[in-house]
């Protein structure tokens, strides 16, 4: 009886969160799935249409493939940001004065509204009047101005830089917490045993940081959705779809082109794609996705 009560309690504890997710994530996903196999407009009754939207997006829609690729590229900003943040965390973790100040300054970018981040970076990158071009020209690092956001080659890297800027502070704070959780006596013992700094880093620090790194990865994934705002404000998906990621494409198809049924199919595809990606990442990272059974 105790175990039964235990199980009931467990589900009761899970209920509030699960209800919210059911209402606001799972049901909407199912709504999208149902819609993706119909032709539908807000003004007319729907008709079952089988897989025509999927066929359209897989075989006839080059913007879909472009945006899929761009999504992958954009997600690469997460590992870059994590690597940078790790470096910063190691620096800040040293015994220097004013750590708190550095920490606060570097974190500052995260709470700033993405709209503001987008607009200011858009200006920084501006070909004619932007600060970056001004600095590059003044320091004679380039001969001609670079059209960061208006050129097909530079647009996506530029957006990735802005995204990294926004999130690196946040990752640093998480990794810093993880670093400070590592018992110092482990490091000392290893040093006494003759392990070098690099070896200590690889065999002690990194494994113990796995949960923190995994957390950063998770937040990074979510952030690449919320960065919808960032991309939309900075480039609107252009030029010529150079920075169109799946989520901006879905938004445009739904609310600018008013094709909700097609957008629903795109959403389902995005979800499945991410699912596969996460599953792969999990396998590569070695199993338990929770990664929260602390390193043993």
């Amino acid at each position: 009886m105790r175990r039964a009560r235990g199980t009931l309690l467990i589900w009761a504890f899970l209920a509030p969160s699960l209800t919210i997710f059911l209402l606001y994530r799972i049901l909407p996903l199912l709504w999208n799935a149902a819609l993706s196999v119909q032709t539908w407009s807000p003004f007319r009754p729907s008709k079952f249409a089988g897989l025509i939207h999927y066929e359209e997006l897989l075989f006839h829609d080059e913007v879909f493939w472009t945006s899929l690729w761009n999504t992958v590229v954009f997600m690469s900003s997460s590992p870059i940001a994590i690597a940078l943040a790790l470096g910063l965390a190691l620096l800040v973790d040293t015994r220097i004065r004013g750590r708190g100040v550095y920490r606060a300054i570097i974190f500052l970018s995260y709470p700033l509204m993405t709209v503001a981040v987008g607009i200011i970076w858009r200006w920084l990158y501006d070909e004619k009047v932007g600060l970056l071009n001004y600095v590059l020209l003044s320091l004679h690092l380039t001969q001609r101005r670079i059209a960061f956001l208006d050129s097909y080659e530079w647009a996506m890297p530029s957006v990735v830089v802005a995204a990294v800027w926004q999130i690196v502070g946040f990752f640093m704070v998480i990794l810093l917490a993880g670093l400070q959780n590592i018992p110092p006596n482990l490091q000392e013992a290893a040093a006494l045993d003759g392990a070098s700094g690099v070896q200590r880093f690889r065999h002690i620090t990194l494994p113990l940081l796995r949960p923190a790194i995994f957390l950063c990865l998770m937040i990074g994934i979510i952030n690449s959705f919320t960065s919808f705002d960032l991309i939309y404000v900075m480039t609107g998906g252009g030029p010529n779809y150079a920075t169109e990621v799946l989520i901006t494409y879905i938004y445009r198809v739904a609310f600018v082109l008013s094709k909700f049924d097609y957008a629903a199919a795109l959403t389902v595809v995005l979800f499945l794609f991410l699912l596969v990606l996460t599953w792969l990442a999990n396998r590569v990272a070695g199993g338990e996705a929770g990664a929260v059974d602390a390193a043993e």
Partner: protein
Amino acid sequence: MRPSRAASVHAALIAVSMVMLVPFYWVLKTSLTGENIFQYPPALLPRAIHPFYYVDVWYYIPFVRYLANSVIVSAIVVASNLVCNALAAYALTLRFRGQRAIIGLLLSCMLIPFQATIIPAYLITKELHLLNSHLGLALPLGSTIVCIFVFKASFDAIPRSLIDAARIDGLPEWRIIRHVMLPLSTSAVATTVILSFIWSWNSFLWPLIVIRNPELQTLPLGLSTFLSYMENTTGALYAFCIMVLVPGIALFLLEQRRFIEGLTSGATKG
């Protein structure tokens, strides 16, 4: 630490700080001077400082009301997150059938993008009669998967001996959470508070479609209305953004210390 090493660390950090601060400097400068940011060459130092944009923000829109709405919604979100996530995380630390399935489910839920769900979310909120209300605004953000895992990580690190001791003492489960788990997880609490606050505070798309009553607008929506009054003045936009930014920063600065306290005094594993 050797002085030369400290110096190089400082140098590196100062360089990084400047990179982080340059955009802020510009936002702040433009908000105080209202120069056309499309001038060239860009003016590095501010001229003619005036605080009028901040005054305009206060004057042209009911900034206080929007602030109050944002505060109420974010407070609901933070409180809800603390409760729901801690409970769920605790449940996940116990072994039960379906635990792995639930974890998998939660991770998958994280992959569902919000922009693709706003219409069904709207319809659901309508069915619940929560349109146009603070609760309706807060509910979709009421629990976040990331924070559940943060709590779980923290709870997992607490020695079973403590929990078992509490159980033997006859404490009911929820009291265990409150008196044993939470006090030892201040960093998780701080992370949850900061994250859920920021996500709720800056949320724009959801309030846009859920709120019809102008009295209930939150700050980001107010920004939109405000911009319509001051269409081409980036200075005004930035003044607004700074004013919206301040609570988030303040919260972080406050929580920062608790964050650290929690880490250095937490129960260390062997």
